């Protein structure tokens, strides 16, 4: 392992090792740039991933306390888990399901496409789609996305056969096994998918792309990476000129450490990223770092979500097979006649039995509730992933009443659901029920919103400094050597699972950082 001195001010310090942080670490180190990568969690491996669902959840999930409020049903249904993210080397790329759809051109122009929708803070992305597309293509090659660049799709599972037949019966045209960063054949030095169905517990074959066993070991091999695990960043410091100078963190013994930095990159997912910026408040930046616009933490988006289950007469055994390998693209359109703006994906979904009972069902108990679980062998499943509308009042703040293990205020998540989100979810549930009814379901059930795995928007990009937190490269408007790398940058979420877009933006950001360093701009 490469050791970088704590007072070495040439280091780029990246906080978080997930889709953005892990990829950025590789991109910078392969260019010869020294990187200190701070990760709050532990390091697992294909060998240490567990096949006991509850143990896997405990092993990988960010379980530090968070508080929440608002009209979102998640507040009542999941009081201790407002969002579902990871605390482990590789971040959410360890538990993600591998879905890598692209945003559509009109989705990155939400303000223009949807117009002035009351109660929203919609914005257009300050990036041309053609430019984003170039980086999508690179990201898809990097992650070996199926159905792109000649990579075959994943084979159809039982669960997908039900989805496909139902979707076709009600007239959907664009239905297939998805754009997945899960190997359909050996590639990238990794195995092919053996349809084991344990995607979110950590993929024990490595068929699913994760920075844990792709980008990070490659960054280590350059000799320029100092990965420090179980190190929790608590504050970014700045000098009198307002430039970031160091990251303060607690090491695994709880001891405070300080790493000097030439550049600081924040990649902690869209809940912890704004928390770290807000925790870095100072005399010069009393509202928190990079927050002269007062936009840090605002415009939090998390996707309209929820499960739809069809209960059939015959066995489906949906747990067999890649968890999310199936997609319907027909509803990814902006057609306000449906009663809402924006689009949604219907994605294949299955859950292991313990998770199905714990998070997969609508609230309930008693005979009717238990009878759904009695049908576990005979269920087919979908998950809704749709664009929720940005609102400046949906935001991450510091909850000074509740402290974490280091004595720091925890993140507070406030979400009031917009009526557009509710209308979209209802539409998707109706369509899902029609699909399953069309192929003989005797019962269809659906859930309310589930804890968000897709967190975005809390340090949004903007062309004008007063309207956002970072520029089109994720660079802070206020602090030139401070970058935001994760989905926090997204001005709006669109309806695509965010990881591909995060990786594409990271590849682009790495080039920008190198150019700026070479030109001695930062």
């Amino acid at each position: 392992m490469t050791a970088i001195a704590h007072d070495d001010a040439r280091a780029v310090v990246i906080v978080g090792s997930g889709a953005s942080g892990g990829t950025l670490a590789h991109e910078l180190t392969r260019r010869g740039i020294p990187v200190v990568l701070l990760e709050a969690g532990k390091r697992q491996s294909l060998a240490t991933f567990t096949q006991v669902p509850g143990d896997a959840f405990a092993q990988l999930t960010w379980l530090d306390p968070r508080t929440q409020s608002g009209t979102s049903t998640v507040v009542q249904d999941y009081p201790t888990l407002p969002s579902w993210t990871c605390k482990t080397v590789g971040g959410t790329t360890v538990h993600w399901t591998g879905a890598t759809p692209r945003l559509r051109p009109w989705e990155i122009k939400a303000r223009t496409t949807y117009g002035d929708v009351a109660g929203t803070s919609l914005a257009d992305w300050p990036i041309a789609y053609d430019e984003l597309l170039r980086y999508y293509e690179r990201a898809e090659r990097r992650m070996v996305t199926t159905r792109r660049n000649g990579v075959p799709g994943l084979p159809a599972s039982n669960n997908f056969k039900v989805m496909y037949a139902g979707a076709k019966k009600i007239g959907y045209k664009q239905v297939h096994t998805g754009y997945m960063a899960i190997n359909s054949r050996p590639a990238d030095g990794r195995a092919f998918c053996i349809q084991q169905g344990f995607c979110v517990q950590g993929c024990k074959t490595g068929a699913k792309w994760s920075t844990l066993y792709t980008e990070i070991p490659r960054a280590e091999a350059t000799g320029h990476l100092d990965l420090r695990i179980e190190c929790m960043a608590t504050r970014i410091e700045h000098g009198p000129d307002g430039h970031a100078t160091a990251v303060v963190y607690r090491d695994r013994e709880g001891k405070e450490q300080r790493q000097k930095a030439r550049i600081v990159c924040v990649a902690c997912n869209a809940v912890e990223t704004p928390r770290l910026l807000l925790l870095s408040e100072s005399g010069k930046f009393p509202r928190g770092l990079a927050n002269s616009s007062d936009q840090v933490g605002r415009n939090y988006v998390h996707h309209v979500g929820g499960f739809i289950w069809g209960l059939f007469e015959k066995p489906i055994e949906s747990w067999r097979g890649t968890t999310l390998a199936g997609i319907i693209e027909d509803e990814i359109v902006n057609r306000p006649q449906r009663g809402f703006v924006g689009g949604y994906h219907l994605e294949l979904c299955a859950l292991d039995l313990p998770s199905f009972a714990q998070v997969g069902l609508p609230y309930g108990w008693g005979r009717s509730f238990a009878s759904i679980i009695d049908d576990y062998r005979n269920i087919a499943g979908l998950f809704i992933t749709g664009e929720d509308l940005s609102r400046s009042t949906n935001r991450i703040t510091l909850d000074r009443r509740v402290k974490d293990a280091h004595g720091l205020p925890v993140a507070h998540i406030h979400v009031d659901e917009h009526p557009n989100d509710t209308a979209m979810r209802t539409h998707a549930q109706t369509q899902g029920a029609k699909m399953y009814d069309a192929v003989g379901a005797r019962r269809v059930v659906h859930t309310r919103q589930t804890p968000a795995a897709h967190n975005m928007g809390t340090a949004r990009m903007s062309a004008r400094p007063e309207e956002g937190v970072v520029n089109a490269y994720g660079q802070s408007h206020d602090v030139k050597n401070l970058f935001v790398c994760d989905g926090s940058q997204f001005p709006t979420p669109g309806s695509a699972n965010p990881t591909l877009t995060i990786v594409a933006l990271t590849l682009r950001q790495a080039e920008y950082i190198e150019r700026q360093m070479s030109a001695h701009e930062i």
Partner: protein
Amino acid sequence: MDLDRPIPRRQFLKTTGLLTGVLAAGSPLALIAPSRAWAVELKALTTAEGRTLLMVSRTICPHDKLEDAAYAVVVQSVDADAAGDARTLAMLRAGIRRLGAHFATAPEPERVRRLKAIESSSFFQTMRTQTLGALYATPMAYAYFGYQGEAFSKGGYLYRGFNDLKWLPEVPLEDSGPVPGQGGT
């Protein structure tokens, strides 16, 4: 859950209650258990309290042919929390009192009625959360519901039925993909 060993005397002295039963011959659980007799020791709750909570759990998630032994795991989990936290124990005892007399032997509609009356209480919500968390996570539940669990150790489901559904048409190759090892690419 100890499905077969006799309870060591020293450990027995530390227990406050004991749930016991015998699995039905030929039940899915009997097939995987080392013995049909089962016993769960309680560290904080009495036997009567344990029986009441077992029936609370069964009323929340009734699966008629699922044995008491499976529900006893839920009680064991609740009891472990109560043994480590006096406030939890007090909360459980208050909840049991609110259920009224003879809850464990009351007919199901009566048990449902009594639970509905306290549905918003932390006692009920704790029992519901614990039931959902513990009841379906055991080998007993896997066997009962026909869930096969992990398959990595057996090479996945790729050649073990992930696509064996025959009552719907096959998906055209352009919308799916080749099964590795079966031609195509």
